[in-house]
């Protein structure tokens, strides 16, 4: 398998911890910025083509993202699943396990959380919300383990395994909504509203900002610690650099691959739970649409560095929030965001590849 990206080694500047040179970190940031700018420039041309002024459009995007407390809240909530799923993907990619199954894992995580919320509604909120979230995590992990086992036992490349199981996972949401969990007579495939006790509480009184963002930050910190401060993290980094070195160091490939897939699946499952418990308060058909790709994009934009997933996820969340405003106010279609994301990814990949060549010399 090809190497994904140059893997910057080491977290902070503390003398005791393996460190990365500031130059490398700066270069990474610089390439990411260039990639984003280039993507915006090309998207700007597309805005021009449709007869709008790109500067006006981008100004609307900026205001839509940061203009008010409400818009910031909206964007933060949007970023939450990207960060949760993205940090899991980053860990997988570190071990050279190309998990692109977040979308399906989010979907089944949402289904599991919804099932718990709807079926044991009388539990106190302090029990029900964690229970539903854990249920989502377990479901996501179980879903991811299918692709992992298909790779380990049957040699099915995890890209195809996760990609195809995404479609199944998403259809599963539709299936349950048209069956046992659907709201009768709603006219749209959705579940009944969850009981209040299953709602993820807002962080502040009267705000829509839910506690999921805290979970996301927690996940980032936990993954950072895992990667740099635990034996499993060491194994993950070894496996990512060379199979032979990993074997020499006594690392079990199968166990490590399974671990990272379970971890990423659980995080995606939590993302799905947070989305249904904190944003929609019900299960909705297609609620995980596009999340899987965004998780991969966020992980790569962060150069597979857990801590950097936080700003990368926020960037994607704010970008999408802003794009909705841009569509509302200027009439530029929000699907332009996909163009910006896709282009950013291509440019980031090329920039990473160039950087890694420089490092090799």
């Amino acid at each position, binding site marked *: 398998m*090809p190497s994904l990206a140059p893997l910057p080694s080491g977290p902070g500047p503390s003398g005791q911890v393996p460190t990365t040179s500031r130059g490398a970190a700066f270069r990474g940031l610089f390439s990411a910025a260039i990639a984003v700018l280039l993507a915006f420039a090309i998207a700007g041309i597309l805005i021009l083509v449709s007869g709008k002024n790109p500067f006006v459009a981008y100004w609307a995007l900026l205001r839509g993202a940061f203009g008010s407390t409400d818009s910031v809240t909206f964007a933060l909530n949007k970023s939450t699943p990207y960060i949760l799923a993205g940090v899991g993907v980053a860990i997988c990619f570190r071990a050279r396990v*190309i998990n692109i199954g977040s979308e399906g894992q989010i979907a089944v995580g949402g289904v599991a959380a919804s099932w718990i919320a709807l079926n044991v509604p009388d539990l106190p909120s302090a029990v029900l919300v964690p229970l539903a979230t854990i249920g989502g995590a377990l479901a996501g992990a179980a879903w991811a383990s299918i692709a992992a086992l298909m790779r380990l036992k049957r040699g099915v490349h995890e890209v195809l395994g996760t990609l*195809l199981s995404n479609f199944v996972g998403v259809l599963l949401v539709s*299936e349950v909504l048209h069956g046992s969990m659907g709201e009768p007579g709603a006219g749209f495939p959705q579940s009944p509203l969850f009981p209040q006790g299953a709602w993820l509480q807002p962080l502040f009184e009267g705000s829509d900002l839910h506690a999921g963002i805290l979970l996301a930050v927690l996940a980032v910190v936990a993954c950072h610690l895992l990667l740099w401060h635990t034996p499993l993290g060491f194994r993950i980094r070894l496996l990512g650099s060379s199979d032979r070195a990993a074997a020499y160091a006594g690392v079990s490939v199968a166990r490590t691959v399974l671990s990272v897939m379970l971890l990423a699946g659980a995080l995606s499952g939590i993302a799905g739970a947070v989305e249904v418990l904190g944003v929609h308060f019900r299960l909705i058909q297609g609620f995980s649409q596009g999340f899987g790709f965004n998780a991969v994009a966020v992980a790569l934009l962060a150069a597979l560095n857990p801590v950097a997933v936080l700003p990368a996820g926020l960037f994607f969340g704010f970008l999408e929030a802003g794009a909705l405003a841009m569509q509302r106010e200027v009439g530029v279609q929000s699907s332009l965001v996909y163009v910006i*994301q896709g282009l950013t990814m291509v440019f980031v990949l090329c920039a990473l590849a160039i950087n890694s060549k420089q490092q090799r010399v």
Partner: protein
Amino acid sequence: MDYNVLAELLAATVRVAAPLIFVALGAVLSESAGTFAVGVEGMMLMGAFSGAVLTFVTKSWAFGLLGSAMSGAALALIVAIATARFRTDHMVTGLSVNILALGLTSYLLRGLFGGKTPVINLPTLDAIQIPWLCNLPLIGRALFEQSLLTYAAFFLVIPMHLFLKKTQTGLMLRAVGENPAAAFSAGTDPIRVRAVAIIVCGAFAGLGGAVLSLQELGTFTDGMTNGRGFIALAAVIIGRWQPLFVMLGCLLFGAASALAFNLQGWSLPISSYVIQMTPYLLALAVLCGIGRRARMPAAIGRSFTRN
């Protein structure tokens, strides 16, 4: 099962397989030369979009098809530059252009028509009856009463097979996917071969998209390919990168989809969503069944560097 239902099922199988065959043949080229063709989903979408829009605007099928091939190739050009020149990861690059295509087609659909989503309604291509043969029992309609592009898809399989097996260029292309160093020492530039293979793959996938929008549905909707590109990739693996077997793989998925489509009309106790899962579940099951026996081109996914 009713005889007529079976005949209809067979005809639908062939019809559904046609776009998959275009895409899968393209993927065979790209992957035989050593590049994972994950981007075919996006290339197909580009082709579906350009084919529908150009035919709608110019009222000419020829322009539509040309446009679909070119737009697929254009997206493939991005993949080619990124993977062959910059040596980026094939899988992730493919995914990126998929999302790019999703955004671009959705944006342009509205942007080009002044912010309003146009209603694209195209007469789908009529089936061409091969006189006499189309009256054959059972298989007559499946094989001899199809649209032009369906015939084209199946007829392409043989030249593709001959190209890969019987020409110096095809030999070289496979060598690049198997052992680029050997191909290099035999006097070719593996990077260029790979780039060209990816771009031609894009053109094929684009045509596959056009079959979908022009012939099957007669319209374009956002993200209408809906994973068909990935299904085609599974067919490529099932067919072990051999055009004739890949065609059979496409027919298998065609049959699954046709069956799923038909079952929905039968008011069975199974929900339609479970039925819709069948092609994906089938793909996963077949991949697991093949297991490690699927011998990929040896150098697939690995970038080539001199020395």
